[in-house]
């Protein structure tokens, strides 16, 4: 099983993408999509990526919920900052956050979450010291943001991956 299908989830996702693009569930499309998906996932296996170990799948739902709520909230907040045009207070600033997270997949997910949220952007990460540089649009309370990142996201990602 492992030799034919090295990445079962990826293969299923590719098949789903194929069927969505074709917009049909005809048997021919399923066969063609499966062949393409199997070959593509074996192509990825040739690159020998690190295989992420997911410990706690239930937390993924919680993480998705948190991210959706936070992205919506910061959409409103950033839209308000732009429309009010209060640019003389200079609340934007850089923030360094020490992280306990070391799993590469988890770090990639955390960086995508932080950058996709309006109002915060992941700039650079140092793997030796485990420190990340983040730019915040509304940096009024530095410690509050560090707590949000560490308690809300990092704890969940630690639960999921480590």
């Amino acid at each position, binding site marked *: 099983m492992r030799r034919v299908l090295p990445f079962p989830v990826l293969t299923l996702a590719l098949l789903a993408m194929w069927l969505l693009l074709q*917009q049909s569930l005809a048997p021919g499309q399923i066969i063609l999509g499966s062949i393409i998906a199997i070959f593509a996932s074996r192509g990825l296996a040739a690159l020998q990526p690190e295989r992420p170990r997911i410990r706690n799948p239930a937390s993924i739902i919680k993480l998705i919920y948190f991210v959706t709520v936070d992205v919506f909230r910061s*959409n409103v907040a*950033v839209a308000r900052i732009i429309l009010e045009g209060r*640019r003389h207070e200079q609340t934007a600033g*850089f923030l360094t956050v020490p992280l306990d997270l070391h799993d590469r997949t988890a770090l990639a997910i955390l960086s995508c979450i932080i950058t996709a949220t309006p*109002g915060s952007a*992941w700039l650079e990460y*140092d793997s*030796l010291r485990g420190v990340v540089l983040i730019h915040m649009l509304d940096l009024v309370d530095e410690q509050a943001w560090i707590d949000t990142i560490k308690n809300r996201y990092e704890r969940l990602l630690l639960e999921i991956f480590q």
Partner: protein
Amino acid sequence: MTDIPVWLAIVVGLLSLAGALLTLVGCIGLARFESFYERIHAPTLGTSFGTVAVLLASILYFSVTGQRPAIHEVLLLVFVSVTTPVTLMLLARAALYRDRAERNGTVPPSVGQDIVVPPTDAKS
């Protein structure tokens, strides 16, 4: 588009309006903010809920008017939400690198070990 229900017209129209408005606000922010690092936050408005609203409108419209549910817009949403952070992070890193190389003093030093950045005279 002759025989669509009124509720569908209103919901689809308002959803697309909301998405377009969010994208517009994001682009206004892009034009208005004063430094590059502030501007990098603006386009995410359009790529997060701006895109969600417009694609939801499209899914609703084609699902109700067509015979089968049209959910292939989900692909576009997944694609946009995965690629935007990657492009923004790459751009931000490029900007950090250039600002540090020119030593114009507005960016913090590298959080990692001290990498020696050669000074350049690029001005564009």
